[in-house]
């Protein structure tokens, strides 16, 4: 489903060339649940953004269902994200001036779903994550755990095939972390492909496979359940 072919990413920082990702190749099949681990600055977030069509590589190709993402224009990549990819962020990235329901309606609005249907689906999703009583609360009126659940509901709004989660439990207490990972587990069982960057070993263990990064290189996969091809 997702494939990286000899992908490298370099950028300049204060006159120095920094390599964020170095000749990475991998394949992630449909319905997989992959955790990406490694120290800070090892290129985990860069890898995730590249898989989501948000950051073009310096060299190499990234493919989603055989479509080379970065051969598309930026607007076509945006449409691809809208239809196929859902993001979850460590800092939730909810729009602060919209209510929980309106935040969940946002991806539906971008997909031109008519307002009545947006509302119905947003309410159903918020009820699914246990926030049926918090529809009209703004993010600042919710706990961090509740905010992450709103973000999860928003991620599911357009029913994406691929979920890319960047430290989804990074700001959460253990109990809420457990709930969030449980939720990701649940949607993975429903057939969605999940790639999750995490520092949390317990969260990583819940994935079917683990990919380790060091200094921009993929150094190891979880050999016990290897379906991930590391170049």
């Amino acid at each position, binding site marked *: 489903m997702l494939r990286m072919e000899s992908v490298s990413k370099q950028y300049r920082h204060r006159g120095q060339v920094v390599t964020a990702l170095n000749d990475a190749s991998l394949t992630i099949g449909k319905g997989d649940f992959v955790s990406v681990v490694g120290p800070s600055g090892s290129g985990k977030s860069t890898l995730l*953004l590249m898989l989501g069509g948000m950051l073009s590589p310096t060299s190499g190709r990234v493919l989603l269902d055989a479509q080379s993402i970065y051969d598309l224009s930026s*607007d076509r990549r945006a449409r691809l994200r*809208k239809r196929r990819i859902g993001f979850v*962020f460590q800092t939730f*990235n909810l*729009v*602060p*001036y919209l209510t929980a329901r309106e935040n969940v309606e946002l991806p539906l609005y971008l997909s031109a779903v008519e307002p009545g249907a*947006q509302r119905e689906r947003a309410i159903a999703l918020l009820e699914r994550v246990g926030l049926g009583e918090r529809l009209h609360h703004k993010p600042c009126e919710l706990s961090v755990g509740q905010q992450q659940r709103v973000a999860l509901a928003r991620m599911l709004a357009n029913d994406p095939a691929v979920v890319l989660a960047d430290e989804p439990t990074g700001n959460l207490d253990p109990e809420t972390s457990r709930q969030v990972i449980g939720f990701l587990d649940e949607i993975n069982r429903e057939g969605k492909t999940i790639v999750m960057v995490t520092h949390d070993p317990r969260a990583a263990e819940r994935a079917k496979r683990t990919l380790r990064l060091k200094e921009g290189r993929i150094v190891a996969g979880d050999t016990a359940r290897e379906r991930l091809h590391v170049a």
Partner: protein
Amino acid sequence: MRMRTLVWREIFERKSQLITSFLAILLGITVIVSIENITFYSEKAVAREMDSLGANVLILPKSVTLQDYYAADMQGETIPEEYVTQLAMSDLEGLDNLSPKLSVPVEVEGRSFTLTGILPKSEFQAKAAWAGAGIFSRPAGCGAMPTLAFVGEDKKTLVRQRVIDNLTSEEVLVGADVASALRLKEGDRLTLLGQSFSVTATLPQTGTIDDSRVFAHLHRVQELAGKGPVINAIEVVGCCQEISKGLVAKINALLPDAKVVTITQIADAQIRMNALMSRLSTVFLAIIVCVGGAGIANYMYANVHERRREIGTLMSLGATSFLILRIFLLKALLLGIAGGVGGYLLGTILAAVLGPKLAGVPVLPMPMLALLAILISSGLALAASYFPARRAARLDPSATLQEI
């Protein structure tokens, strides 16, 4: 969720920024509206003052020179009075006042004066009304101020406006020198060419040949002089803008057997004054547009910077660059419309209050300025926000998310 919800909520999310940017637009438009409003009425007042300089176009018999005219217009040559009717019923624009004249010499108590026949405006209006059209059926020209119907006419305005509204065949107006020499005052009787007249008004000193004139109804002078329906000249107070657009040529075309001359000095002064007023207004407008535009652009750049994370999030959810551009431009448009409406209301109030104090002219609301205010405000807000909005649309979503 709709785009307007998204934009509307964001506007009210950051109230302090909203108030600052809204005030910038509001004050700019307020100043523009009040200046335009006061300037409009000031221009009218200046034009009226300019009109008091006298006629700026003369219609004379072909063989008569301007020098002859200034020699008390008693050159002997005449043109048909019919020309006045032709002008009054024509579709020429910019004829503010017409004053046909026939002058004959008279002697009273051994002194020589000039008896000048003039036609009151009420008679033109009657002629125009017969035709259902004509110059007096249209709104007042550039130099004319609308007068209130219930205000009685001051006959002494003849010396400034070159025309009066009403004059009966038994009335005369006497120039300052005539009044002084014959010791005449209002209500006295004066016999001219064997006919007794009532002195309706003694005119103020003008320092011109008019001081030694006695004005009577044109038809009575024609009758006393036995000259028939003829006149020596038609003094025209023309709208200076129309003069510059070729009014003289149009009159020439209408009256090919008459000579039409412009009193250049007066017309030029009027044109120069109007151009000056117009330039001043444009300069103010340009300054405010520049300052207001810079303020809005500054605010929008700050707003884009502050909302980078939000823009990155929207892009991660699938928003295209064009959608981001539209979100920022819609916000600018809403602010522009609100600033335009508010600025019009505030500017109109300000103009009505300050106009009489600063410019000494009464200022009335001008609904047309509402449209102008909204157009300028929206156009300015959109133009000033375009580059900030484009920057937002071109943001690198990965950079906005990684830097958090």
